[in-house]
């Protein structure tokens, strides 16, 4: 159970067709994915999927509506990461949902990107949004454009765009780093409604402090499901909840066992805790 035999085991496994040291991991993977899949199936069979309100998402439509009234554009920033990050892919999915609202309101949305691949994907998403809103003719590929790879040049450009075009609604979804507060404070200076969502823990404080609504971590990934309102999308959220229940159960069982082991000094309990942490969760 120490580090050495485990390493030896891995070495043995390199010639086999299955890495047995990862069997517990496979188990965890199957359980978590299974929970999500099960709820997708249940949703398709018509089970009602009720989820709680998330204030930030309920206000997306208001923000777009306000922009329309004021005759100003919306700004959508998909973060500074490339398509090899799930946050960016989630942002593109959210863009399609937000874009649909924009198309329905006949508002204008501008999507500057920092990566060429993101530009391609965002164009596809926005075009499809306009099509599903029944306004394919209003889509303009020029609204989604590439700026530059460099983080701060991109931010400098966004600042300029905000100061000049004064968007009434700003959406920041994706992977953000130091630019989070620059964007949020510039947006605040022009009086825009700002909704942000990211999975970069260290940037959340700035969005929380300076934006009107912030989706924290998991909420950000849930946004596309919420905005779509489709039953099987909502089902995946229920699946995630089951995942959290499993986590909570694991922590409670583990902590109780560890506490008892500490109090009683029982080797069996200690062994169980070690098995849990070093084998199952290694």
């Amino acid at each position: 159970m120490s580090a050495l035999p485990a390493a030896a085991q891995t070495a043995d496994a390199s010639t086999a067709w299955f890495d047995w040291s990862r069997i517990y991991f496979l188990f965890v993977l199957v359980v978590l994915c299974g929970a999500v899949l099960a709820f997708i199936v249940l949703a398709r069979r018509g089970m009602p999927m009720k989820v709680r309100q998330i204030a930030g998402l309920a206000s997306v439509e208001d923000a777009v509506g306000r922009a329309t009234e004021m005759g100003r554009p919306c700004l959508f920033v998909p973060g500074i990461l490339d398509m090899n990050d799930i946050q960016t892919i989630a942002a593109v999915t959210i863009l399609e949902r937000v874009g649909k609202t924009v198309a329905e309101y006949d508002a204008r949305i501008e999507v500057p990107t920092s990566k060429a691949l993101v530009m391609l994907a965002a164009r596809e998403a926005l075009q499809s949004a306009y099509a599903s809103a029944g306004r394919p003719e209003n889509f303009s590929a020029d609204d989604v454009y590439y700026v530059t790879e460099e983080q701060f040049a991109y931010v400098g450009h966004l600042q300029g765009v905000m100061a000049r075009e004064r968007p009434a609604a700003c959406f920041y979804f994706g992977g953000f780093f130091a630019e989070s507060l620059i964007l949020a404070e510039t947006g605040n200076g022009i009086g825009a409604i700002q909704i942000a969502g990211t999975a970069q823990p260290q940037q959340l404080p700035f969005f929380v402090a300076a934006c009107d609504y912030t989706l924290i971590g998991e909420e950000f990934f849930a946004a596309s499901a919420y905005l779509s309102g489709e039953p099987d999308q909502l089902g995946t959220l229920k699946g995630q909840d089951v995942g959290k229940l499993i986590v909570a159960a694991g922590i409670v069982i583990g902590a109780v066992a560890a506490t008892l082991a500490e109090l009683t000094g029982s080797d069996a309990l200690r062994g169980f805790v070690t098995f849990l942490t070093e084998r199952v969760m290694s």
Partner: protein
Amino acid sequence: MGAFLVQEWWIVLMFLASLAPLLHRLATGGLVASLRTLDRRWIFLLMFWAVAFPIYYVGVTGKTLPEVPGLLAQSTFDEIERLAPGDPVLLAFDYEPSSAGELTPMATAFVRHAAEKRLRMYFVALWPLGAQMIDDVIERVLTPDFPQLQYGRDFVNLGYKSGQEAVIKVIVTNLRELYTTDVRGTAVQNIPMMEGIASVQQMKLIIDVSAGTPGTKEWVQYAVTPYPSLRIVAGVTGVSAPLYYPYIPRQLHGLLGAIKGAAEYEQLVLTRYGGENPNPKYTEGLRRMGPQLVAHLLIIGLIVVANILYFTDPSRARR
């Protein structure tokens, strides 16, 4: 201080003149009412002076604030101090110019400390521009102050490799699979100090200067966690420091956070090796603590004022 203000009267004059309109408005328009409608550009201006004035003061007089090293800086220092001359250490420079303001003082102090200890230094970079940062520090510290140290014998710049954390995973078991040459194009087998170095595991210590991803977290996850005999200390930016606390002390053996960490560590290195009149390049962090203090006090003051305004706001009760 008084003599400084008299001698540099013009900066005092500019300070007062630039704030005169604000003071005028506060005096005539009512203190609380004016503060409530304060244009944020006045805050920007205050911030400017809070940083510019101490820099000028420190720059002209050369005085710095005394620094009391904290626990983490002390353990970082001890990790390097306990090594013996000739021990190999890996210096990973995972940052670029945009964070150089915060990290250069640490990089300088780390390299100086390692050079004073006569450790063998292997430089690598996981960020494309990290290789340039390495060259900078070699040119700034090793070339002028340690001319007896030879490239290839005492230190080597292995340069940047793309692949982010995948690089760590590979070099922790086999350094030469990725690093076939150094940054100058010399084959690794022709570099004397590479003899006997097959992987990162032979390093007595990993010193990481990190501005984000890939960086300290990845070194901890992919090098130290699977090979617990490895030890690592890191100098990181203020924004990323909170993320690393959970790894202390089992997976991360020393941590310098932001300019404060740099200043504390500089103080330790100076106390041990400094001499009376240290070269200014080794006190960069200490110098920066002056503006740091005034700016922190300004922000604290702003928060206090904002809350007084909030709690005395008559419209608050109605809401």
